[in-house]
Structure formats: C-alpha cells, structure tokens
C-alpha cells in the first residue's frame, strides 16, 4: 500500500459517521486498501501523475474556516438555493433555507436514508475510478437532491465549495447524490473555488446522478481553483428511458486536477449533451476523462471539449464512447479541439470509439493547433495590438461554448474571469456586455 493509501485509511478512522453508511464505507475501504496504486503504467493515469499526493501526503482533515473566504470569493449571482461548504464543512450561516428534497445526509430522515442507501455507490463504479472507493471510504456527509415524480425543482441548487489555505496539507471530501424520478426536472450548479493564495488542500469529490424516465437535469461543474490545490473527482450518471443530461464543465487551476464523467445510457431515447472547457496555465495539469456507455438502442451523445493550454501547463483529454452490441441506432459525436499558446505547453488527447453494433452513426475528432498567425495579422492590420489579438483569438476559441451556456448568470460570472486569463482586456466589462447585444 502506498503512503497516501495508508494515510487515507487513518483519516477515515478519525471520522464520525452515521451507522447507516457503515456498509458503504467498509466496501470502499476494502477496494481502496487492496487496490494497486496507479502509476504511469496504469492506462487511466498514463499522463497524469499522482506523485503530488505521495510527496506531500496530507495527514489531516481540513479545518473549518468560515470567515476569511468571503473577501476573496464572489459567488455566482444566481437566484438559487445555495449550499456553502468551506473546506468540506457545511456552513449553515452562508447557506439558504433548504427546500423539500434537498437535504444533507446527516439530516436525512428515514425515507431519505433509504433512498440514499438505495442509490449511493450504485452509479459511481469503484472499478472505473479508484477515487470513488476513497469517497465511499470517507462517506460521512453529503447532499441529496431528490425530485419526486413529475415535479420540477423551483430554483436551481447551487453548491459552492470553497477552499481556504491550511497550515499543513489537508484533505476534504464532497459527495452529492441526485435522484430525479420520472418526468422530473432540476438544475444543479457545483462550483469549486478558492482564493488566489497558495492552497494545500486535496479535494476528493464525486457526484452521482440518477435521471429517471423522461426526466431532465441541467448540470454545471465549474472548477476555478488556485494552482497548488489538488483535486480528483467525477460525475457519474445513469440515464433511463428518454432521460436527458445537459452538462457544462470548466476547469482552471490546480497542479493536479482530474475529473471524470462516466455516463450510462440505460434506457432507450436517452440523451447526453456535454460541453467542456479546460484552461491550464503555468505548471497546472488538468485531466478530463469521459466515458459514455451506450448500452441500449436509440440514444444520443453530443460531447464537445475545448482546451487552451499555455505556458508549461499540461492537459489530458480522454474521451471514450463505447457502443454495446445492442445499442443500434446510436447517434454519437465527440469533438475535442486544443489550442497551444506556448511551445512548452502539452496536450495528450485520445478520442476512443468502441463500436460493437452495426447500425450506428458516430463521429469523433481531435485537433491540436497553435494560434493562427493569419488571424493575428488580420487583427493587427486593423490597429489591434498583438497582445489584444492573442487575447481575442484565445477567448474566441472557447467563446462559442460559453455562448451556449443556458444560465446567463454563469456566463456573466465566467466571461470577465476568463478574459483576464489571456491578458488584461482594455475594456473588459464593456466588451463583455457587447457580446450579449
């Protein structure tokens, strides 16, 4: 067992957990402690080293720090039910009154406990992602979002996860379970954020989503964290008949950020739409692994990821679509485009299509490019400085995906923050405004 595996078990033993989660914790502990620690020879971790966890092994749970963050962090201005977690600890003070159907595991009633036990750990597969086992082993609290049959959650649920600096390397864990019954509808925003000071937190965060027949979820996972933070997590989704998952994800920051999307098309007519943007700079590393399992006929997948990799940063994109033998009439498209803005930036992209059905339509493609010098010249020939031209072209590369984000407040939040990544805009806000005209 590696140092971190050992240490993680010690940390699990320090936790107080409800009795009804014991079985899940035991199962996770079992998988975690017997698993072979991933190395560069492990296919799923080929380009992403877990060494930062071994060299600076965190030995404690992150502390509660419920005041310092507010100066550093603006929440997204959403009209939503807000839940704030600081270093993994729930902050009642900064959170909204929770509506029916949104509850912390620790406050779940008997029927909610039953629902959690029925679904938690069934969508996320420890065999596919070792850190799901860790999440199981560390399970104490979490959030259940449950929408009953035919209902629509009145407001979006906004989970704001804030990291603050710790004296010593520390860990935090987050677990979310979404259960949408048939014909229901909800919107969930998961936002991970930290201040700009050096962070030494390791975050392990997993979300499981069960989308019932003809139900729909609009989901966001926004990761904007300072570059020393370590984050491993995943979104694990089961789609039943005619269910729809519409997702947007964005990642910036972290010297190790690994996010997996595992999607199971389990009922006919299900649809996955997923757009993603990753923007590592400096020495950051961002790794998206997506895996879509088409198990039944007549489902659709439309997945688009774009990355801009600058400085000496590194990105990994592995997009797998697996079409099982029975999954006839599947329509699946996967596109991954990358822009390298520095000679020392690195991208490892691998679209994988595995098709065992014979009547499907699938397309996939990956491109890697540098800034188009003809476009730079075109802008310069109109009086735009090279720096502004580079900023406009870089932003333009991801702007198409931002334009498709349905929640305007998220667009408004991201635009000024992302524009400055590519250099100061001479009139950022005003231009941001003009894009909506």
């Amino acid at each position, binding site marked *: 067992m590696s140092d971190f595996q050992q240490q993680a078990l010690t940390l699990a033993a320090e936790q107080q957990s409800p009795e009804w989660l014991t079985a899940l914790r035991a199962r996770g502990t079992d998988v975690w402690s017997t698993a072979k620690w991933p190395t560069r020879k492990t296919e799923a971790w080929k380009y992403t080293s877990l060494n930062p966890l071994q060299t600076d092994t965190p030995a404690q749970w992150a502390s509660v720090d419920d005041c310092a963050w507010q100066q550093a962090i603006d929440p997204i201005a959403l009209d939503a039910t807000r839940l704030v977690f600081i270093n993994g600890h729930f902050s009642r003070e900064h959170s909204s009154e929770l509506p029916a159907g949104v509850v912390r595991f620790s406050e779940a009633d008997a029927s909610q406990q039953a629902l959690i036990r029925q679904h938690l750990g069934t969508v996320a597969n420890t065999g596919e992602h070792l850190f799901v086992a860790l999440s199981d082993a560390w399970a104490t609290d979490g959030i259940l979002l449950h929408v009953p049959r035919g209902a629509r959650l009145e407001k979006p649920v906004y989970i704001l996860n804030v990291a603050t600096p710790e004296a010593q390397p520390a860990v935090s864990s987050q677990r979310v379970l979404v259960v949408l019954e048939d014909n229901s509808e909800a919107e969930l925003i998961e936002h991970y954020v930290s201040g700009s000071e050096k962070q030494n937190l390791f975050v392990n965060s997993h979300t499981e989503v069960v989308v019932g027949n003809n139900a729909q979820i609009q989901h966001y996972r926004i990761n904007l964290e300072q570059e020393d933070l370590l984050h491993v997590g995943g979104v694990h989704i089961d789609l039943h008949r005619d269910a729809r998952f519409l997702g947007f994800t964005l990642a910036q920051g972290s010297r190790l950020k690994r996010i997996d999307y595992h999607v199971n098309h389990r009922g006919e007519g299900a649809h996955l739409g997923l757009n993603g943007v990753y923007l590592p700079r400096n020495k950051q590393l961002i790794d998206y692994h997506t895996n879509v399992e088409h198990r039944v006929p007549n489902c659709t997948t439309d997945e688009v990821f774009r990355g801009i990799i600058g400085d000496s940063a590194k990105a990994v994109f592995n997009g797998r679509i697996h079409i099982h033998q029975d999954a006839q009439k599947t329509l699946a498209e996967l596109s991954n485009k990358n822009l390298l803005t520095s000679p020392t930036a690195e991208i490892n992209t691998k679209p994988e299509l595995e098709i065992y059905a014979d009547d499907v339509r699938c397309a996939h493609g990956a491109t890697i490019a540098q800034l188009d010098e003809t476009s730079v010249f075109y802008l310069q020939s*109109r009086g*735009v400085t090279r720096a502004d031209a580079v900023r406009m072209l870089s932003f333009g590369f991801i702007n198409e995906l931002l334009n498709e984000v349905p929640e305007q407040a998220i667009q408004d939040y991201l635009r000024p923050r992302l524009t400055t990544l590519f250099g100061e805009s001479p009139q950022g806000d005003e231009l941001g405004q*003009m894009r909506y005209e």
Partner: protein
Amino acid sequence: MLSIKGLHAKVEEKDILQGLDIEINPGEVHAIMGPNGSGKSTLGNVLSGRPGYEATGGSVLFKGQDLLELDTEERAREGIFLAFQYPVEIPGVSNMEFLKVAVDAKRKHAGLPELSAVEFMKLARETSKRVDLDASFLKRGVNEGFSGGEKKRNEIMQMMLLEPDLCILDETDSGLDIDALQVVADGVNSMRDGKRSFIVVTHYQRLLDYIVPDYVHVLAGGRIVKSGTKELALELEAKGYGWLENGEG
C-alpha cells in the same frame, strides 16, 4: 501621402518586388494592374507589414515618416488600411467586439476619447447599412460563414469605420458579381473626399468602370513597367499584358 522609391521585397526567399517606384498624392486613386505573379498582392502586404513579406531595399515614406520602421498595428493607426483579398474568418470573436477594439485603438492613437458601447453600436449599425449588410452580421463571428460578397462588404465597412488616409484594395473585386461590385464601389466612392488616397489592385479592368482611377500602373516582374491614365486600363483589356512584359514599357 505615399512615396515609394526603389522598393525591393522578398517572400519566402524569393525576390518579388525589384525596384518599385510610385508617388501618391492626397486624394488620388491609383490602380495597379498586372499579370498573375507580378507582385501586385505583395505590394499591399509589404505596405501593411505582413510577416513573411520582407522589404530588402528602397524606401517607403508615408505622410513623411519611414513606414517600414513601424509595426503592423502602428501602420494601421497611422492610417494605412488593407482590404484583404481573402478576409479571414474568426469564429468566436464577434464582429462588433473586433470593430470596437480597432476603432478605439485608432481613436486613442489620434488623441480622441473612446466611444461608449452605445455610441459605437449606433455608428456600426449605420455603417453596416451603407454597405448593405444586415446589422445581424455585427453579432456574428468575424466573417464567419459570410459569403464572398459579404466578406468584401465587411472589409469596406471596416474601412469606413477606421477612416484611413490610405486605402489599399487588394483584388477586392475578384469573385464578386456585378451587384456586389456596385455596392463595394459605391462604398469606396463615398469615401473619396479629395484627401484620402487609394491604391486599387486588380486583375480586371471591370472594377475601374466603377472606381475610376486617376492613374493606372502596370506591374510586371516586380516593377512598374508602364503608367498612364484610366485609358491605359482599356488598352490592357484589349491587348493583354504581353506587349508590356516583353518590351521596355
């Protein structure tokens, strides 16, 4: 306005311009014609400072200053405008944003305040009308999915907004039907104010029926081999270029 003496330039190690002389006064329209490969497009690209187009000899004075010493964006701010033969498509950057940044850069250079978003949008909408482009084009990505004619009209709209002193039209007429050509020519003619100068690079005499030049020059082998008035263009249309390329001009 522009004084070019003995200009030599190379593109990818190949000598293209070989001693070009031209003198352009304020308000004049000069047409430059010539066979393919004569260096017509190279001239516009050298004047606007395109990377890869290297001036290796001679001098270019623009409004009295050494143009070749300036960066591309400085030349633009000083008043050089190149309407591209093949305007570039830039998805994700809205036409409106691009135009505002460009106009603000020019105004700032001239010591003028930047326009507010509202003022600019009004100006942009009026200008798009002048070139018969629907205002919806302002919201789209720069030239993204535009037809050939729409791209050329977008070039003219940029020219109108930037109000340059010297406009270089690089084969703006190629690929245009008569109607589109008329719109482009009307736009250009509306900008002839007796002070602004134009270099109209074209392969076809047809354009010069619409934009009537003061002078016509024939470029061959990297030099001006014959100069004349607009009648020269008609002569070229009738006789071709062969008689000039072989003779002393």
